[in-house]
Each structure stands twice: as C-alpha cells, then as structure tokens.
C-alpha cells in the first residue's frame, strides 16, 4: 500500500497538517504536499477512469506531465474540472471529486467498454455507425459524447478575479532547476535585466531530489546559495508558481502565474497572466521521463521511476512497499537506491539491457538488490492496483520466466528534453540516436524580428542529463559526485517481440487509451504521417498533450513504417505548455470592464430617465425613453408624435466631428466627398456623402465651413475614428504634399438636436445673444454665441423634416444644457427622443440612413443621390469604381418608397420574389426592403426598399415575403412620405 513515511519529505511541513476531501471522504495531508502526494499518503491509489475504456487509473508522474490524476475541484463559483493532482498544491479545505465514471470511481458502468476493447481500436468510429443514417445523430453520437468528456461542467459564474501584467526584460530564463539558476546567474552577472520563471513552488528541479553534490556541497545548498545570489541582484527577478506557457513571435512569452490556487484564502486575483517581451529566451525546462510500453503498464501503481523517488524525497510518501524497477537506463537505479535507503523493498531491477548498468550497478548490489539483465516485463498483474509482474526476456516474445510480487512498478524508458517552448516559434530538433531523444538544433533556432535566434536551451532541455553536463551547458564548470552512466538502450516495446495480445494491453497514451496496437493499426492502414497517426488514434491529444506518449508513439510508428524516427518527424508543439485558465486569458476584462462603454456627457440623465440602451459601435445611445407602463414601442411612437407636434431633444453627441484645416483643405474634401465642398460658403452647411475606393457608400454627414481654410465634417456615430483615420491615410500616404491638418474633436462637444414646431421657441426661452429668427438664421447655416449661459454653436439642419437645430456646446456643459432644455421646455411639451424615433422620423421623410439603406454594397446612384454627386469634379474617391460595368448597369436595384396596401408593416429584411428560378433552383428576386416601420404620424406601415427599375415602376404593386411563407402587397411610391414640399423644416 502507499503510505506516509516516518521521515523524509523535503517539501512538506509536518507541523502543519491540513484536511481535504476526496469524493466526500476526509483525508489528511501536510502543507507542502501536492494533491497527488497527499492521495498517496492516504493510500488512494486509484484516482480516475480513462477516456475510452474507463480503465482504472492511478497517478503516473509527479509533475506537469501527469495524464491520469485529473479532478473536479472546488465548489460553486470556484468549481473547476480537470485539475491536475500533481501540480495542485494542497491547502486546508480543498475538495475534489474523481472524474469520468458513473455511478462511482470503484464501480463504473462505463468500464463495460473494456470488454469490447478489442472491437474498439483506434478509429473504430470511422468504420462503424455509418448506417442507418439518422442513428449517428440520435443514437451513437449522444452515447459517445456522454461517455467521453472527462470533467463536470462549471455551473456558476466565476467567483475569482484575474489580471494581466506586461513585463520587459533582456533575458527570460524559463525553469528554476539548476540549469535555469545557473543561466540566470550568468546573465545577471553580465548586467542583463533577467526574469526567471519557475512553474512550481520550489527550485532545484531533479538535482535536489537526486541528492547530487556540486563542488562538494549538496545540490540543495547550491540551489539556496544561487537563489540568494540572484535575489541580491537588482537586475534579476525570480518568480515561482509562474509557468511560461507559450513562446510567441518577436520575443513574446506568456507567464501563467498562479497566485491563490495553493491558498485557502482566495482574496485577490487568482491568476496573473504575464505578457513578457524578452530580448532573448533561455529555456531551462528540463526533461521528462518516458514510460515503457509493456502489457498492463496502465494499472494503478505503475509510475515513472523518477516520480517514485520524488514522492519519497519531496513528500515523504511511498507508493508501495515492494517496488520493481524496470528500465533501459542507469537513472532508474537511483530510484531503487532511494527506496531501499528509505527502508522499502525492491525485489528486483529489471534492466532491458543485456549488459546492465554502469558503476551504479555496484552500489545497487551493495544494497542487496537483485538485477535482472536483458529482461523485460511481460505483463503487470492486478486490476485496480499492481499485485505483481511477470518477467520475460526482452529479446523474446513474452514467455514468462518468473513472477515477482510487488505493489509498485517504477519504470523508465529514458528521458525526453522538454522542447515545447523551443518549438512554439519554429525551433527545429535533431534526433540523437545514442540518447534516443529529440534535442534542439541550435543552428535552426526560432528567429525573431532581427532574423536572429531568440530562443536557446540549456541543461536537460538541451539533452544533457548529468548535473555536471547540465551546468557545463549553462557555462559553469563544476565537479560532482556522479558516476558515469552506461549507455541507454532504446526500448520501444517490451518485450521486443510482443504479440498482438500483449500489444493491445501496452499503453502509450493513458488518458486517451491509445495502445501500441492502435499506432500499428494506423500505420497499417496508411495513416503514415505522424499527424495522421496522432489524429487517427488520438495519441497525444489528451489534456497532457502527449508529454509521456508522443515519443513512444512516434517510435512505434517509425518501426511499423520501417522508417527512421527523424524521418517520421514530430507533431507540432503548440501553446500552452500545460492548460491555462480562460479566466487568466480574460484578465480584468469582464463584466463592466469587458469592453469600454463610450458614454456621452448626458449618459447619467438618460439612464435615470428610462433609457432603453442600444449599443452603437462602442457607444451607448438611448433607443427610447420608456415611461412607466409603456412598452418600448409605445415610447417610440409617443416620442415621434411629440416631435411632430411639439418639440423633442435628441442626444446627438456621438456624431463624429472632425476639423479639416489648411490651404488645401477644400481640394482634399472635394476628393473625399462625392459633393463639392470647396465651394461651400463660410457659415454654410452641406450634406455630404463619402464612398470608399470601391465606390460604395461608407459615411454621410453635414459639412460646415467654419472659416476660409477650415471645415467641420460630421460623421455617423461610431464613424469618427474610422473616417479620421481614412483622412489621415490619404493625407500621409497619397497626398503628402497637400497642406491639410485634421483634428478629431468629436468628444469636445456635446450635441443636442432640438426638433419640432416649437424648437425655436424652446431655444429662445433659454435666451442668449444669437438671432434665431427664420430670416436671421436660415436653413443650412450656423451661428455661434451664447445660448443662455452656454457657449454654443447652432446648426440649422434637419433630419426629421421638422424645424430643427443642432446645438453644440463644450462637452463639460452638455449635461447642464440638456437639463436646461428639459426645464425650459416643460410648458412646450418637450420630451427627449431616442434613436428609434430618430430613425422613423427620417424614414417618414425618405432620408437614407447609413447602415440601413446601405450595407457596404450600395453606391449613391442606387439611392438616387445623384444630386449629391458633383458633375464638375474630375475625380473623387470611389468615382472610378462607379464607372465599372456592373456598377453602371441600369439593372441595379434602386431606392423607392413602399406602402403596404393593408397598412401593415413589411417585415424587416423582406425580399421581393420575381417569377421563376435561377439555375441553382433559387427563387429569382427583384428587390428588398431596407427600412420598414410603423409610422405613428401616418398611422400605417411605411418602408423604403431597393427594387429593380424601381423608380420607373411608381404605382406598381409588388409582393414581399414573410417568415411564415405568406406575402404582403405593397405599392411602389415616392420615398418621401411626410411633408413632401419641405414646408415644415423651413418655418
């Protein structure tokens, strides 16, 4: 059984016991434990079920590479699925539940899949469930989905907060093992600004566990001394619990810092995502031990050899009383020694190498451990935990020589450098035959903005495995007490001649249930590329992303194809190194801070007075001011009628305002607008249209000439930045010799439309020094002066067809002016109106709206706006485009007004079918509606639309479709529905 040892455990604090819950049971551990070590301490060997066959699964590893020990963790707003037990630090009150089983971990119905395992090989679903057709959706898929899926679904809103942090350094060192520490020291001493990140809570990596002596002192002491030296350097920053999750182009690295995951106290941000920009990145990410592929290597109690000693040394737990070590290299002998020295039994070391180990063999012999050379495990015995191993010859087919009783198997198939970060931006690898590993090729490093290498590796990440070699790679010559190791012998299958029965039980990918036989099947069926095999078998696609399985699978594949490993190649390494929380990626940008809300100076008034908000770009505009007992629709109708009868105010502050000034400003605006703006008189306003170079309408607005060399251009809401950028683009990149300056002054002003027959009365009530009379202030002009106590510029323009003014004041005065207008207008019946009323008011007048009548495919000619296109100009942006054959075609749909015969409202988006069908069997169409409303003024439905040859078909009745399949009849009419002669706006 697994248990807590009486002593040892360099990371745990035995004076600080903590309690946690596993599947409802109370367990005890110590501060410093990981969840995995604490589970072992409580003899919880089985920790979950596999993805496909629901096989019992135990902890295999001690770090980020763990494929099995994933849990549903926490409760409520802090619930999270798939938490990895080997990297989760224990804290008091932690609760976990095991995953992927029903009804319980011990008795799982899904385990029935194991009985059918032989009919569920890789890719079985591609070959089955084809008939009958509806069964895939209704029967097979739901079953497969339910049985897959791992963790439970979070139900509540996240209770934690997150943040980001930008950091800049010369050198980023990733990994706080001895290689990383040495590299950071060297760079720090060279005066570089250095950041060192370590993903776990503590430093030193493998060296401190393996008890190596460096220059006569223990690795532990060496690590502490080096850390102290680093901490003393002002130019070096060292952070733990911070994982470099991905390397991106031009030296960008994400650091995933876990701030409260290890604490009972969850206050403050949970994760901080570092966005690091480093001049150079040194990855000292170490190496990961590989499992060996033998039958039953997935039974709980089979672990990586180094993990077994990690549990003893770091956390003082033994995985089993009797551990069989199985290996193809010398390193695993250390496990035997450490176990033996801890008082545990090691019945045998099974070494696949006929020649056995190097000098370390003598040490093992001294301890009385039996070494079986040239042997292999034929099969592991046990169901929910190991009970023994059957031993055979590695060179044979698996005939059992003897059986050894044990409750733990410590396996080692060699080591693979962690090359993920090196590879994220294209660093290439070389296959090292002797060490049987992919090593980074420094001559093919990822290159940065300057075309030079920006990532390098050091230590085990470079493929150096001894402490002395690791430190030498980091630029430090040291002496150690290590003995020379005998060469490893690649072992990809154990025994090498294992038959199909054994291969079907030899796991490569524990979580996704991919076995040696699956990879061989893929190869046999022609899925020869490593990407094909990966995808066909799902090898390496689980939440561990194949950290344990990829190389073993690759080797099996290359053997099956009779190709060399480097010729088969690796799959692509993609970020993140281990999964990072979506919360961290989101950072502070949630709820109110999700996106900026642009608010006008009158926002608070609107909000307090029933505003039904509408996002327009990033702005919030009032759709309608809804009063008690009203629907939104009621409110809109009331607002419209009030503008027609009395006076209304609209917050138009969001309209873009751009100043264009200079000797060439007129010439410039003539190019920008379809109209002539250079001839506009000072003090006058003109409605203008802008097209893009493709000829399509992109914006409209009133242009005002403020002075001889100065114009003020209004744009649509949300259009200001785009149009200002557009102007600057042409001025900087095309006509850079033209003398024009622009300034976006949109937010300098609050703008209020005052519209309705009583508009003038209302403004006059405020007083001031401006002549607002019909004669003194004609239509399409502006005045400047005092409106009451406000500094105002007033434009006499109208989008509603009523007598109308747009009053512009400095934004700081906007709220006060708005309030003053409401107050002064009380007896005139003033009411604010929103965007929907504004839309309908203009539609009643047949005015087009950018975004309704236009959709990016409409040219001014479609909307009968020829009057706004200057005939005198040689050129304007979009002119050439409009000359192309399709644009100049008389068959383009043109704008008309539409009146339903029954007075109803044509549905939004409705089309006008034409007789017949096109060659693709689609109904021919001849038009569509662009704006359609109930007009409270006319008490009927009105609409505008684009109809083929529309203006020539006045009076014709056409039919529009409805969603229910019926049609609505409408007559083609002039689009001006209200006050056709324009008398109202000219009073």
């Amino acid at each position, binding site marked *: 059984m697994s248990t807590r040892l009486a002593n040892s455990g360099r990371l745990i604090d035995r004076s600080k016991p903590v309690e946690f819950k596993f599947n409802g049971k109370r367990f005890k551990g110590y501060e410093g434990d990981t969840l995995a070590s604490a589970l072992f301490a409580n003899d919880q060997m089985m920790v979950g079920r596999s993805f496909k066959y629901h096989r019992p699964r135990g902890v295999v590893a001690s770090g980020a590479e763990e494929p099995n020990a994933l849990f549903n963790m926490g409760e409520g707003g802090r619930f999270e699925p798939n938490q990895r037990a080997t990297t989760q630090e224990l804290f008091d009150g932690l609760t976990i539940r095991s995953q992927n089983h029903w009804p319980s971990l011990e008795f799982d119905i899904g385990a029935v899949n194991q009985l059918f395992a032989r009919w569920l090989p890789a890719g079985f679903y591609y070959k089955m469930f084809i008939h009958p057709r509806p069964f895939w959706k209704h029967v097979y898929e739901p079953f497969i989905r339910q049985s897959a899926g791992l963790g439970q679904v979070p139900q509540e809103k996240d209770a934690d*907060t997150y*943040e*980001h*942090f*930008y*950091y*800049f350094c010369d050198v980023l060192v990733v990994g706080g093992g001895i290689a990383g520490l040495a590299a950071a020291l060297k760079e720090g001493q060279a005066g570089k600004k250095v950041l060192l990140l370590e993903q776990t809570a503590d430093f030193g990596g493998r060296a401190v566990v393996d008890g190596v002596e460096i220059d006569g002192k223990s690795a532990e002491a060496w690590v502490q001394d080096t850390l102290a030296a680093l901490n003393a350097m002002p130019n070096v*920053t060292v*952070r733990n619990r911070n994982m470099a999750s991905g390397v991106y182009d031009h030296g960008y690295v994400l650091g995933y810092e876990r701030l409260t995951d290890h604490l009972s106290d969850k206050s*403050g*941000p949970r994760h*901080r995502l570092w*966005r690091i*920009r480093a001049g150079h990145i040194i990855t000292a990410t170490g190496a990961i031990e590989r499992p060996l592929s033998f039958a039953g290597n997935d039974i709980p109690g089979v672990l990586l050899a180094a993990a077994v000693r990690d549990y003893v040394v770091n956390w003082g737990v033994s995985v089993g009383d009797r551990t069989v070590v199985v290996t193809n290299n010398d390193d695993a002998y250390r496990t035997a020694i450490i176990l033996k020295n801890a008082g545990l039994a090691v019945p045998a070391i099974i070494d696949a190498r006929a020649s056995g180990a190097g000098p370390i063999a003598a040490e093992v012999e001294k301890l009385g451990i039996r070494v079986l050379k040239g042997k292999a495990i034929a099969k592991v015995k046990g169901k929910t935990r190991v009970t023994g191993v059957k031993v055979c010859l590695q060179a044979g087919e698996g005939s059992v020589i003897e059986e050894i009783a044990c409750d733990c198997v410590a396996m080692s198939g060699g080591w693979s450098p962690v090359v993920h970060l090196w590879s994220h931006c294209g660093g290439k690898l070389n296959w090292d035959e002797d060490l049987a590993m992919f090593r980074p090729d420094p001559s093919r490093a990822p290159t940065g903005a300057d075309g030079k290498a920006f990532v390098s590796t050091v230590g085990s990440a470079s493929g150096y495995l001894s402490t002395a070699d690791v430190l030498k790679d980091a630029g430090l010559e040291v002496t150690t007490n290590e003995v020379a190791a005998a060469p490893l012998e690649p072992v990809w299958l154990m025994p090498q001649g294992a038959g199909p029965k054994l291969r079907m039980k030899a796991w490569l990918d524990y979580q996704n249930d991919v076995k040696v036989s699956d990879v061989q099947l893929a190869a046999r069926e022609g899925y020869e590329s490593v990407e094909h095999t990966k995808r066909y078998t799902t090898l390496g696609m689980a939440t561990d992303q194949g950290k344990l399985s990829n190389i073993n699978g690759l080797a099996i594949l290359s053997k099956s194809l009779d190709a060399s490993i480097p010729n088969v190649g690796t799959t692509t390494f993609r970020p993140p190194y281990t999964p990072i929380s979506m919360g961290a990626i989101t950072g*502070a*940008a949630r709820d*109110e*801070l999700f*996106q*900026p*809300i*642009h*608010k*006008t*100076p009158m926002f608070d008034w609107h909000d307090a007075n029933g505003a039904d908000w509408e996002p327009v770009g990033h*702005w919030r505009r009032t759709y309608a001011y809804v009063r008690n007992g009203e629907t939104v629709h009621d409110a809109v109708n009331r607002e419209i009628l009030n503008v027609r009868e009395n006076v209304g105010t609209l917050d138009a502050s969001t309209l873009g305002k751009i*100043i264009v*000034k*200079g*000797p060439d400003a007129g010439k410039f605006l003539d190019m920008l607008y379809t109209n002539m703006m250079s001839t506009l008189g000072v003090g006058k306003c003109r409605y203008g249209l802008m097209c893009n170079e493709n000829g399509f309408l992109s914006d409209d607005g009133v242009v005002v000439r403020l002075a001889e060399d100065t114009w003020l251009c209004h744009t649509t809401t949300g259009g200001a930045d785009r149009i200002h950028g557009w102007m600057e683009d042409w001025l900087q990149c095309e006509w850079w010799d033209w*003398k024009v*300056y*622009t*300034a976006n*002054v*949109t*937010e*300098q*002003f609050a703008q209020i439309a005052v519209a309705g027959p009583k508009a003038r009365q209302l403004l006059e009530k405020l007083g001031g020094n401006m002549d607002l009379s019909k004669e003194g202030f004609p239509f399409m002009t502006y005045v400047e002066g005092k409106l009451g*106590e*406000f*500094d105002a510029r007033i434009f006499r323009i109208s989008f509603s067809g009523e007598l109308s003014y747009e009053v512009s004041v*400095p*934004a*700081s*005065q906007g*709220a*006060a*002016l708005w309030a003053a207008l409401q107050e002064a207008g009380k007896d005139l019946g003033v009411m604010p109106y929103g965007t929907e009323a504004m839309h309908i008011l203009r539609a009643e007048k047949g005015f087009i709206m950018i975004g309704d009548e236009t959709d990016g495919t409409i040219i001014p000619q479609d909307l009968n706006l020829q009057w706004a296109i200057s005939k005198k100009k040689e050129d304007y942006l979009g002119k050439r485009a409009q000359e192309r054959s399709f644009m100049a075609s008389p068959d383009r749909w043109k704008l008309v007004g539409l009146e339903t015969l029954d007075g109803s409202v044509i549905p939004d988006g409705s089309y006008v079918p034409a007789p017949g069908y096109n060659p693709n069997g689609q109904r021919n169409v001849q038009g569509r509606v662009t704006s359609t409303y109930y007009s409270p003024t006319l008490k009927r439905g009105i609409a505008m639309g684009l109809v083929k040859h529309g203006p020539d078909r006045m009076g014709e009745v056409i039919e529009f479709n409805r969603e229910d399949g019926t049609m609505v009849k409408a007559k083609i009419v002039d689009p001006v529905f209200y006050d056709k002669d324009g008398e109202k706006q000219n009073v």
Partner: protein
Amino acid sequence: MSNAVSALNGKTATGPVTVQELGLTGMVTLRGDFEDEGFAAAVTQLTGLQIPDVRQFQTDGVKTVLWMSPDELLVVLPYTEVNAFVTAMNDALAGSHYLVANVSDARAIFSVSGEFATEVLGKNAPVDFEASQFVAGMVRRSRVGQVAAAYWKLDDGSFRVVCFRSVAEYVFGLIATSATAGPVGVY
C-alpha cells in the same frame, strides 16, 4: 463656467496607489511644422516653454507642452486660460499653416501615484514603466486596456494619464481595479 463639469468630476480612488481624475483641465491640440521658426516662436512665446524633443514634455508646473507626434503638440494649462490661449495662438500663427483646437472637454486626465503606480499601469499597457526605462519627462502614447491613452511621468514619480472623455469611467475602473488588486512585486 459654472455649468461645466469634467468627465468624472474629480472622482478619486485612494489607497497605496491613488487614482484621481483631475477635474477640469485645459488641453489644446496644436499641429504645425516644428521646424518652422514662426511656429516654434509662437509656442515659446505663449507657453514660455520650448518645443519638447521626441516623446518628451516641457513643463513649468502650470503649463505643460507634450510631444504627441512629429507635427502635434498637446498643451496642458489651467482650464480658465484655454480660450485666451487659443485666441492668442490663432493670432500669432495667422497666415501660416497650422491647426489649434481646444480639446479640454474631449479628454479626461488622471493622476496615478503611489508606491507601486508603475506596476498598476503596467497591468494594462504594453509599455515598460520600470523606473530606469520610463523616466520623468517622458511621454508615451499607447493603450490602457482597450482604449487609447497617453502617459507622462512627473518629477515626483507620479504619472498623468490622458484618455478620451467618453471612456473615462472605463479607464478609471480599470486602473482603480488594478490598484486594488495590489502590487506585483517586481519594481
């Protein structure tokens, strides 16, 4: 102007790092040719300050002239002086090619100060705020979260942050939230 209020009317979040909207502040955008002697003379005459070097600012404690782009300056001055300043600038530059615009109300201006102000700002902008990199006298235009902002650092180590008025609440919320979340512990 008694009716005038700034975007957040002086809203303040106090703590180890204090975030304060500075209330009504005069701001004027000035575009012109910095090489032009007349332009440079007008700036100096009306502000008492030289045109700053690239990404620098000049200040006398009351008026500040900031480099915003190769042909744009931002002049920060008391709110009540803006109209007179704009008029004077128009007079001084009459006949030349330039643009002057009062943008006092188009912006919101914040002070961010306190022991880990640099770290707070560093949470929301791709800018190296570390003291040796971002020195007093420097200006940097960038982002704060998802909106545009300009930062400059005063001699006392505090920062000024300017953004558009409409997003003042977002910017305040973001910086104040970052301040409440505490220090990172690297600067």
